[in-house]
């Protein structure tokens, strides 16, 4: 029974990872790709690690998986934020159909 639940959660995580990577291929712009890929792949990897916890069931494995989940949850949004900021400072243009760029407005009003 717990095997079936673990494999189901593992499969859902892999599906999320696939959705995120399809977004990485299909979307038109650095910022769109960053947004789609980071969120989907973070959730998918956390689900894969939870499924690994349920499948193994031994205490050291569960502890390592929980530590890994905490690391992924902390580091992935931080890296995405730094990357978006770096790309904007470097001067990468937004997609031509984007409607708003609040960071640019804020920088313009400060200087």
């Amino acid at each position, binding site marked *: 029974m717990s095997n079936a639940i673990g494999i189901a959660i593992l499969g859902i995580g892999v599906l999320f*990872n696939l959705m995120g990577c399809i977004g990485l291929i299909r979307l038109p712009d650095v910022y769109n790709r960053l947004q789609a890929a980071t969120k989907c792949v973070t959730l998918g990897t956390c689900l894969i690690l939870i499924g690994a916890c349920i499948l193994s069931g031994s205490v050291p494995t569960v502890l390592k998986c929980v530590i890994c989940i905490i690391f992924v949850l902390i*580091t992935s949004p931080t890296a995405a934020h730094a990357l978006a900021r770096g790309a904007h*400072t470097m001067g990468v243009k937004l997609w031509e159909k984007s409607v708003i760029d609040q960071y640019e407005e804020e920088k313009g009003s400060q200087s």
Partner: protein
Amino acid sequence: MPEILFNLVYIGLLICCAMCLYRVGRGPTAPDRTVAIDILGIVVVGFAAVLAVQTGKEYLLNVAIAWALLSFIGTIALAKHLEGKGFDE
């Protein structure tokens, strides 16, 4: 029966890795490639966890933890480089 399901999981994760590598090679600007490398690092963490559970070798989870942290440090370094700053600003 679980062996077939594990093989399907491996195939899905390998397709993810192939898509990330496509974006690394194709991406028009440098931030595109950096985003793809970041995502590839997170996918590989999941891959190592699945491998650890299926083969029963626990040290692969240590590999997953180390890979998550190293991928984070590399992405932060590349982002700082794109921004044109040093590491201590």
